[in-house]
């Protein structure tokens, strides 16, 4: 189980994440939602160690991850929101790099890379530089990189970005299957329809604070909303979209 307790991050004393709590049980898919600037990316960066929390704790199976940070990192797989990749490497070389950085032995690594590229439809382009890859192909490389070492905990930040319909269905099924096998999945996204289909429960953030953490069905019932979109709009106090559209049109004609 992963437990996040009172996680806080301040930049220049301005709180970006102001006390977030949540837990992910084995087999659970937790959706992590919030408008732009709510603190989602900062939370993800704290989970993978790119940013140090100002205060708060992250526990993995009851132990603080700080006690064995390399051990924790070896058990996670991460798909970042933006495809920040070394584009002068080929897809295969990138997977070799990430596998080696995880300390995977050559024989295992090569076998898994070849199979993964084959299954993701990248076998033909395995020696093509990533700079020539489409957005979807880059996303597949990130997914392969996150899955190569069979992690226990997956952190997915907009994992469907750029994927075609077929691949999206495969990924959705894969996420459900991995969860059924007992893996924990943290799923951060803006696409509420997909979150509603994929996740069992959600955390909704607003200005760095958790405003909801529950099962999706329960939240819908509590707030008397038909969809997660309605729940989200109500909890994050979204501005009237039509008014914004009218203002944009006015600027275009000014």
């Amino acid at each position: 189980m992963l437990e996040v307790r009172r996680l806080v991050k301040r930049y220049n004393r301005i709180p970006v994440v102001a006390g977030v709590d949540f837990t992910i049980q084995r087999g659970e898919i937790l959706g992590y939602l919030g408008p732009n600037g709510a603190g989602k990316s900062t939370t993800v960066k704290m989970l993978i160690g790119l940013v140090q929390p100002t205060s708060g704790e992250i526990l993995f199976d009851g132990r603080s991850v700080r006690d064995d940070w390399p051990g924790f990192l070896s058990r996670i797989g991460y798909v970042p929101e933006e495809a920040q990749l070394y584009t002068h490497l080929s897809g295969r070389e990138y997977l070799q790099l990430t596998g080696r950085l995880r300390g995977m032995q050559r024989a295992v690594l090569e076998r898994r890379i070849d199979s993964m590229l084959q299954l993701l439809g990248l076998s033909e382009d395995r020696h093509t530089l990533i700079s020539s890859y489409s957005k979807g192909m880059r996303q597949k490389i990130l997914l392969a990189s996150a899955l190569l070492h069979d992690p226990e905990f997956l952190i997915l930040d907009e994992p469907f970005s750029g994927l075609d319909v077929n691949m999206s269905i495969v990924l959705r099924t894969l996420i459900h299957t991995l969860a059924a096998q007992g893996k924990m999945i943290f799923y951060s996204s803006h696409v509420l329809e997909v979150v509603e289909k994929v996740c069992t429960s959600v955390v909704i953030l607003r200005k760095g604070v958790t405003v909801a953490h529950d099962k999706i069905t329960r939240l819908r019932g509590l707030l008397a909303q038909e969809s997660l979109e309605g729940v989200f709009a109500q909890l994050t106090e979204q501005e009237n979209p039509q008014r914004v559209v009218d203002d944009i049109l006015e600027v275009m004609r000014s």
Partner: protein
Amino acid sequence: MTAARLRLWWQETHSPQIELCRHFCGQFFESEFVARPGQLKLLFGGMLSVLASLSVPFLQAYYGKYLFLKALDNPEPFRLAVIADVLFLISLSMLAIGLVTTLLWQSLFPDRRDYLALASLPLRAQQIFRAKFTALLGFIILVTLAIVVPAAFGMPWMMQPVRGTLHYAVFGATGWQSIGILTSCFAAGIFMFFVLVALQGILLNVLPLRLSTRLSFWLQASLLILFLAAFPLVVAIPRITYSMNLRPDWAIWAPPLWFLGLDQIIAGSSDPFAARLARGALAGLASSALAAIVAYWWSYVGHRVRVLETPDASRRREPSAYSEWTFGLAPRAIGVFAFVAKTLGRSPRHRLILTVFAGFAVALSVNTLANAFLNGFNFQTGRLSKITILLAAQLALSLFTLCGLQYLYRLPVEPRSNWIFRVYEPGHTPMLLAGVEASLLYGGVAPVALLNLLVSTFLLGIAPAAVLALLTTPPALLLMEGLQFTSYKIPFTSLYLPARRMITETIIKYVVGIVLYISLLSALLSWCAQDITRWLPATALMLIAYIRLRIARLDIQRVARLEFEELPEVMVQTLALERD
């Protein structure tokens, strides 16, 4: 028009042609190596101020030289010195413009990026080509004038004979001399620019795109080394005044001498040989300009289609076995080593910078050789001096290669992608840094040692060559250790901020390094190389020092953390008065 109105005019939107010129001009000051826009301008500004401050002692030395020559009864040494100095200025102008044009090599013609970035705009290909050529020519003219104008007016002023003396009677006023130097140096610089543009144009249009891209890099690297290596020879021209009376037949094939002839004719000479050379200058300038324009027109006709329609060159063959070499390293170290090797192998800009460092090493070796020959050294007979020169050249190569690699490693490649290293660093820092050490060892120390061994074997035979290799490899290993002591970075992953360090500080560091590592050490090692009782203990001592230094570094690295960002610069001290 006042400066404020000029600025306002500049900020307005102008015709597409002017806007494109502005865009292309701005590109000359852009680089992926700088973190913030405008930093390259700052760097250029710093370099210009260093050059300006260096020109003061240079002018003083020249003033003293001509004061001495004016005092002589015989006007001949004065005349020959003037000719040698004008030839020096012409060659310097050609060299400087050649160097600048070579550095702008990839920007000489519109490229794929230009075509794609401007594709959706209402512009004709003709406008893009015209604007690119205009911007390039304007930039080169400005650089040429910046080099030539101070020299054209400063040098004749120093050479000016004193009124009423024998020299004044012989040489007269200096007005035409200024015009001669200005015209000949300017024409020589522009000639060099046109020749290189034509060369690049022919390469782009004649060869298949993939081949021309590959060849283009090697040509650029060769030109860069050639120009840098030619610098000490150009600087040596004023020391060979005795050759200025010669009129060799091959002079008609030497472009700097054409422009010297042009200078002489403008300054009032009626020498038929000078007139012949001057005609060569005019013909050379006209034909190079024509060739450059034709190359541009040719590219306009076909290059765009070729660039945009050639299949993607990024599709690669099955990788060669080299990437699977392990050198007995752990997977994490192999990961870093392979990353460094692939990045260096695939980034033309990084390779080019490494070429510049290699060019400096070659230039330093050429300088040593030129000095030796000017001082009457005979390469066939002077065995001991030959060893000293070889040692200096080998040490120069290892110094510049290792420093070049170290500098290159600081230049980022897609710095935002470094998350992959940051995520997997905790607990594995020494292993990752072992990959960096391997890259310096196998990419810097080993190839240089091998090259040195081959060259020394060719010149001295196998046994002395082996001794020299034994003497020069441990200093390279020690230098490698020294460089790693202060650096806890994975190459290409940290954000480098050029111009953070004062350029004078960098120059002083390199000068001290050259004096200590090359001049003093080569003299010492040359003494050691004479006898086995000297070179064997010296090699053993240096190897022991290397091993001890390495152990100390590994101890420190066990508790170190990798650096991915340069320390932020504090612009304003806030005193932390705000409330939490």
